[in-house]
């Protein structure tokens, strides 16, 4: 017994020794780059550290340059943060990631700040893992404000109102956007959790312009005219609507967009707000009525190409393709956000091959307030180069390239409408900046369990015929977190 004790202690001493030796090893190894791994820690220290890798004595570098004055963006443009890297993440990949890189190229060239963006298809999982492990990127693009709000509540998001010039930010946005970026912080008081970087307008009806005009159809300006147009199309042997709601794990959001657009046209904005806040139940007459109006189109097999079977199994992007069929349009109208155009065939030209009109008012009393959604960026720290990027997002200028390439609408007031690459985007952009009444995408603003959960789920069940409307609405109400 005694021998073994001795053995164990010897063993543990040796083990400890080997650990220590190993710990020293990387520093001694010529291939190791301690400066490299240490860099992030160094940059998080006071603002004035310039290029920490350049010299081993940080004190010396601070003396070289007097502390710059002006906003973060001014200092960045003056080259103060040259050589730093800002990491970014978000759900967009592929073409959008390339457009983002293109639109930020100018900033990177002028400031010398590198923006390292990594998008991911499993955005929710990767961002939560990174957040909880304390390894989150500097700036994060949230496609829905709900997730940002939950991180803000945990105190993981920087309060931008303490960093940026709030007056300047407010001056450049419709107040509605500022309201939508205020979220409760850790102690419950609202913080400015993010910056609306680019947005989109919803409720636009796209149609194949050539055939639409050739058939003599006119853009409807009222709901009654829309119904007349639908019936005319049916009489002419065509199907009016192209609808598809499949979207992987997010299947069903197209249906929620429809209901929200109809809600805004059939009741007051106040009721809409109450509904989004959970005060007006789904089973209320207002919401039920909106769902019924939607169903009157969706569940009419003559109105929808392929009927409900096609609706549930067709991805929202693919659902637009029959409009561009080589043998003429199989269906004539698709209602969606302005981002849908990037799912059209690459050869289709705006204004020639397709046009768009705004979904007409249903009840003249309520008009047609615009439903909007967008990408809000939050920051996880207060590094000056990070704040410079966030401040840059508040200027429409940063989006210029993307606007030209199409697919992004600027919410910033300093956006020049001439920057848009297509007339349709220009109309949407103008409407968003100037519109009096904006309302945020209801499902995006509801708690995740409803807005990204039961609202989608129950609507798909209703559309697929598995449930009747009252049951579906009652189930959504039951799922609202108490």
């Amino acid at each position, binding site marked *: 017994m005694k021998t073994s004790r001795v053995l164990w202690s010897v063993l543990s001493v040796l083990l400890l020794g080997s650990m220590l030796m190993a710990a020293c090893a990387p520093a001694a190894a010529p291939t190791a780059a301690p400066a490299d791994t240490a860099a992030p820690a160094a940059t998080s220290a006071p603002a004035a550290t310039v290029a920490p890798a350049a010299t081993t004595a940080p004190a010396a570098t601070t003396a070289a340059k007097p502390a710059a004055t002006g906003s973060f963006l001014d200092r960045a443009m003056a080259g103060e943060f*040259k050589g730093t890297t800002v990491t970014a993440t978000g759900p967009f990949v592929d073409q959008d990631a390339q457009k983002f890189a293109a639109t930020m190229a100018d900033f990177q060239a002028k400031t010398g700040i590198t923006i390292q963006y990594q998008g991911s298809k499993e955005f929710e*999982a990767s961002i939560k*893992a990174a957040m909880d492990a304390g390894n989150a990127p500097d700036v994060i693009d949230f496609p829905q404000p709900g997730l940002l709000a939950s991180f803000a509540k945990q105190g993981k998001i920087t309060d931008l109102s303490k960093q940026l010039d709030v007056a300047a930010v407010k001056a450049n946005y419709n107040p509605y956007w500022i309201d939508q970026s205020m979220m409760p912080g850790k102690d419950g008081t609202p913080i400015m959790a993010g910056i609306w970087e680019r947005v989109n307008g919803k409720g636009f009806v796209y149609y194949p312009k050539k055939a639409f005009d050739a*058939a003599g159809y006119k853009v409807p300006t009222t709901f009654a005219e829309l119904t007349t147009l639908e019936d005319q199309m049916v009489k002419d*042997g065509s199907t009016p609507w192209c609808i598809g709601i499949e979207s992987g794990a997010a299947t069903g959001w197209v249906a929620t967009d429809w209901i929200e657009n109809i809600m805004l046209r059939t009741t007051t904005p106040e009721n809409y707000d109450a509904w989004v806040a959970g005060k007006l139940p789904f089973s209320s007459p207002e919401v039920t009525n909106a769902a019924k109006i939607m169903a009157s189109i969706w569940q009419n097999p003559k109105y929808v190409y392929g009927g409900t079977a096609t609706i549930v199994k067709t991805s929202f992007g693919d659902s637009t393709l029959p409009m561009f069929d080589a043998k003429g349009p199989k269906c004539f109208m698709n209602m969606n956000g302005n981002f849908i155009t990037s799912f059209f065939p690459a050869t289709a030209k705006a204004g020639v091959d397709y046009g768009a009109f705004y979904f007409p008012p249903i009840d003249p009393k309520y008009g047609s307030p615009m439903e909007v959604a967008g990408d809000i960026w939050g920051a996880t720290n207060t590094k000056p180069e990070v704040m410079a990027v966030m401040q840059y997002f508040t200027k429409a200028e940063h989006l210029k390239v993307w606007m030209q390439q199409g697919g992004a609408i600027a919410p910033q007031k300093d956006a020049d409408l001439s920057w848009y690459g297509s007339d349709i985007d220009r109309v949407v952009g103008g409407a968003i900046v100037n519109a009096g009444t904006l309302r945020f995408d209801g499902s995006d603003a509801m708690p995740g369990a409803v807005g990204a959960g039961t609202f989608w789920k129950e609507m798909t069940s209703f559309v697929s015929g598995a449930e009747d409307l009252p049951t579906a609405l009652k189930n959504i109400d039951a799922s609202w977190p108490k």
Partner: protein
Amino acid sequence: MKSKFAGSLLVNGMLAVICLLWTIPTFGLLVSSFRDRIDVNTSGWWTIFPHQDWVSVQEVTPDASVNRDVPMTFKADSGTSVTAPFEQLQIGVEKDGYRFQWIGNRRVGYLEIQKYTWTSNTNFTLENYKQVLSSGNYTAALKDGTTETALGDNMTHAFLNSVAVAVPATVIPIALAAFAAYGFAWMKFPGRKMLFALVVGLLVIPLQIALIPILKDYVALHVNGTFLAVWLAHTGFGLPLATYLMFNYISELPRDILEAAFVDGASHFTIFTQLIVPLSVPALASFAIFQFLWVWNDYLVALIFIGASPTNQLITQRLAEIVGSRGQDWHLLTAGAFITMILPLAVFFGLQRYFVRGMMAGSVKG
């Protein structure tokens, strides 16, 4: 003799039916990967085979002045003529072996005169593969302000990265698991039952719950973003199944050969390295394939532990970036899926020879 032949026919026949059923979906994918976007979305892949269908022989676009609300008359080049209202033409009117079919809208459509003949849809293209292999360029901004666009060879780079991740992430867990499996199967120690229950129980743990704690450790150790991080994670996630399957195999080995070895004075270590491991080659090879496939096709673990570093990205990450935001680009997905399949299939064929009978028959006898 006769019954043997019949038996072999029956065996091979059944096998052929099952194999056909299993292969048809993949074959459809292969065919689709060579078809262009429009074809993929508008006709079934099986239309590449000769089949009978109504094929357009003539198109007639009526003059704008023609009243389409009353019966219309159309005459084919062959002389056949048909008079029918729009509603009938839309369904199709058959006469003299021809079909008169109205295509599209009453006002902007046209009439197609069709004949029922043999046809096949053999419009193949390599465009999908070209696009997958060269598009989705990663544009990295350099510090001097210029941008650097890595072209198609980035895919090759990612391919090599995936190999660099998959090989150690396959070998390390198998080595650990083989030792542990032997320990559970043939050694006595306190807590043996409890620890084995633990291994079985851990099979059910979804790896998603482990991502955050592991990431925390990686951040502390500065290994996040390296292959090492992915190897260790895959080792941990693969170990329960590896240990369980290896245990199952090693414990089934005949007890008498081990007994004989102990009588000869061999230690556990000698028996393991010189007897058990050679005997377990089929099981080791089987599991190696599975683990390799899981690692190879994994996206989530790579995403979280490698993340943004463009130089260390794996092939699944690259593919996700190419087809990620537009899930309905089926024509690209088909090509992408096939590219990722090549190596796993090669590994399967490479290890195939370890599954043949007789590998162990001789040693068991000894």
